[in-house]
């Protein structure tokens, strides 16, 4: 046992420098929309606090790049690297496929695209144990089938939803986990440890705290990962839940997907500091920043927090810096191209998570340059990308889900009044 009790105590209630963030990364993480000199359509600069210029450091850093050996990724094999890359393709392809289907009028409801944000989902889920819990929200659709996908893409008993279930949900079919009662991301599974969200932002973080509280009562050591947009951190219930988790040292890891826009509202109108990880400081819990475009950085940071949480040290917050590629939802695509400056959008999309992971794999010698050039999904808009830009197994996998969904029936009308109440008595 290498950790002593005093180790734990020493790091337990200040924002921790348990991860490093090289200087270069800091720059990569900064998008212009948080800055007053580049405000999109913001009309009243006075409303913007002048001192956003004086940015806090992303995380405390010791000033030199960390050696790989101390990072969680050190335990990953070549196969893991290639699997992570493939999952990035999978998440991307799923999103693009939905965008196409939506454009063809085959889907009802709104697509909140996860395009360009996939590394956060793939990287955060990769190291979880099957019985860990997750709580995805509107922009995290791929999370539902990525959970525990290491147990086998085709293993329907794994602790995640199947691609069929997920497609059935999007296609509004009775074969979906919600039996088409609630839409898109408002699904989950009690058995598979996925919390069912509502629309109310940040509304599932208390439930996340509750599931692990119950688990601890039962002697378990599961952790829970909750996903939230940066804008959602302004909700009162965010505060109440994290405070509760901090008081009880619950293993709740809150991932803030900072894509720099909350619908039409930029960072500086949601929060007074440039780094949403600093929310952690008010609770005396670790607040880390990850490069949301780099699946390995996300993986490292999440695994550090998972280890910390599983050891009983309590909750943490990880801000993953990223950028929303398109509109808030697909209905907002056209407007979003106007309320956000074009250079910003280009900069935000420039560090494509697939490209970055490809580069790392090539550099490591895990992938030949020729193989890397084979599937060119990166930086392609849904209208530009074709099936050929993706590994065939990825296309096949999603296709299977879509076919299942298309063939599934819609729910029968009478189900509308069912399940208001549970019937059995405990």
């Amino acid at each position, binding site marked *: 046992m290498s950790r002593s009790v005093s180790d734990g105590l020493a790091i337990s209630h200040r924002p921790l420098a348990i991860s490093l963030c090289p200087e270069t990364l800091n720059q990569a993480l900064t998008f212009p929309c948080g800055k007053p000199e580049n405000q999109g359509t913001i009309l009243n600069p006075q409303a913007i606090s002048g001192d956003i210029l004086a940015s806090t450091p992303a995380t405390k850093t010791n000033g030199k790049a960390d050696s790989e050996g101390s990072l969680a990724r050190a335990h990953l094999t070549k196969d893991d690297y290639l699997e992570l890359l493939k999952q990035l393709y999978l998440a991307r392809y799923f999103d693009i496929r939905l965008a196409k289907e939506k454009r063809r009028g085959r889907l009802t409801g709104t697509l909140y695209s996860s395009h360009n944000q996939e590394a956060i989902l793939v990287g955060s889920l990769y190291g979880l144990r099957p019985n860990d819990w997750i709580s995805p929200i509107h922009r995290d659709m791929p999370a539902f089938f990525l959970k525990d996908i290491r147990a086998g893409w085709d293993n329907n008993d794994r602790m995640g939803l199947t691609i069929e279930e997920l497609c059935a949900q999007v296609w509004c079919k009775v074969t979906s*986990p*919600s*039996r088409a*009662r*609630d839409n898109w991301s*408002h*699904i*989950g*599974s*009690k058995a598979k440890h996925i*919390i*069912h969200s*509502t*629309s*109310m932002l940040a*509304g*599932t*973080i*208390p*439930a*996340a*705290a*509750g*599931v*692990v*509280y*119950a*688990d*601890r*009562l*039962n002697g378990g050591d599961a952790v829970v990962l909750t996903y939230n947009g940066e804008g959602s951190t302004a909700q*009162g*219930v965010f505060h*109440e*839940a994290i*405070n*509760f988790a901090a*008081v009880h040292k619950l293993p709740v890891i809150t991932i803030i997907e900072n894509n720099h826009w909350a619908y039409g509202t930029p960072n500086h109108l949601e929060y007074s500091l440039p780094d949403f990880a600093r929310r952690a400081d008010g609770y005396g819990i670790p607040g880390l920043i990850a490069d949301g475009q780099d699946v390995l950085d996300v993986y490292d940071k999440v695994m550090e927090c998972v280890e910390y949480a599983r050891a009983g040290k309590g909750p943490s917050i990880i801000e993953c810096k990223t950028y929303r590629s398109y509109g808030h939802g697909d209905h907002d695509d056209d407007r979003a191209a106007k309320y956000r400056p074009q250079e910003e959008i280009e900069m935000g999309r420039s560090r494509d998570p697939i490209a970055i992971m490809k580069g790392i794999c090539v550099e490591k010698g895990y992938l030949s340059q020729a193989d890397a050039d084979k599937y060119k999904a990166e930086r392609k808009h849904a209208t530009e990308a074709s099936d050929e830009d993706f590994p065939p197994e990825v296309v096949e996998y999603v296709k299977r889900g879509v076919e299942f969904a298309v063939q599934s029936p819609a729910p029968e009308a009478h*189900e509308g009044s*069912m*399940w*208001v*109440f*549970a*019937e*059995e*008595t*405990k």
Partner: protein
Amino acid sequence: MAAVAQPTKKNYITALKEALMEEMSRNNDMVCIGEDIGILGSAFGTTEGLQEKFGASRVIDAPISEAAIVGTSVGMALNGKTVMIEMQFIDFISCGFDQIVNMMATYHYRTAGDASMPIVIRGPAGAYSGGALYHSQMNESWFLNSPGLKVVCPSTPYDAKGLLKAALRDPNPVIFYEIKNLYRLPKIEEELPEEDYIVPLGEAKIRREGKDITIASYGQNVYHCLDAAAHLEKQGYEAEVIDLRSLNPLDEKTLVESVAKTNRFLMVNEAPKTCGFAGDVVARMSDIAFEYLDAPPLRITRMDTPVPWAKSLETHVLPSVKDIADTAHKLITY
């Protein structure tokens, strides 16, 4: 000769205490959470001794965070627990409102039965005691209009215990209104059965039989109705007084049978009038008992005002025995 144990009469709050103690013993998967319910044993003492017996992890002194209290309970329920939530006063339930109506109430529905929510939210409620705007509320209507919630309000020690136990065994979320004015009211003390019992949700109770008018109510207003009935008796009329006990599910059968007999209906509660439950029951009677009615089904409620502090003001806006007796008389002689 051995001393024969004197049967003891118990008050309303003792009945609630017993229910909590017994259910916590019976169900190892039950957790209690609320503000000041552990170390203090609750503002009114309802949870006294619970933390001592079951530990601080099953009897949680929560931060002053009603939304988190409800939300974490949802999570615990999702992971197999039964949860008793105490609101220090039912008035503060508004601070956890979204989590109740949108997260907890709908969970079973939107997951097509994947997850049920065995959660009881209970708390001291009701006016007539100088509690002013924020320690007097009866806000059950908000929850009755939010599908997926059961709503209960006992008026006697026997029912308090039996309904609370039933609520804690129900797989659905229940909002449980305790009438703080009744907690220690000596005149309603009664003996409670030694053995385990429940009062099933959805069964009304006829508190007084009568043939001239049906007066339905719940909570402390039941006693106002009984007093009005006594008054009417002096005038030669027999009022039937029904204590609904459970608002959702509602025992329509008992109501209709009574109205079939009395042909008059009056509903009394202390919540604000507009969109309150009194109006709802009146509308139901229009629908299911119109043919029996020889007079309009009416309601007596609080005025559409908050509950003010000074006694003179409070009395003015709340239903009184006189209001009930007068209106009942009007209906009987309609």
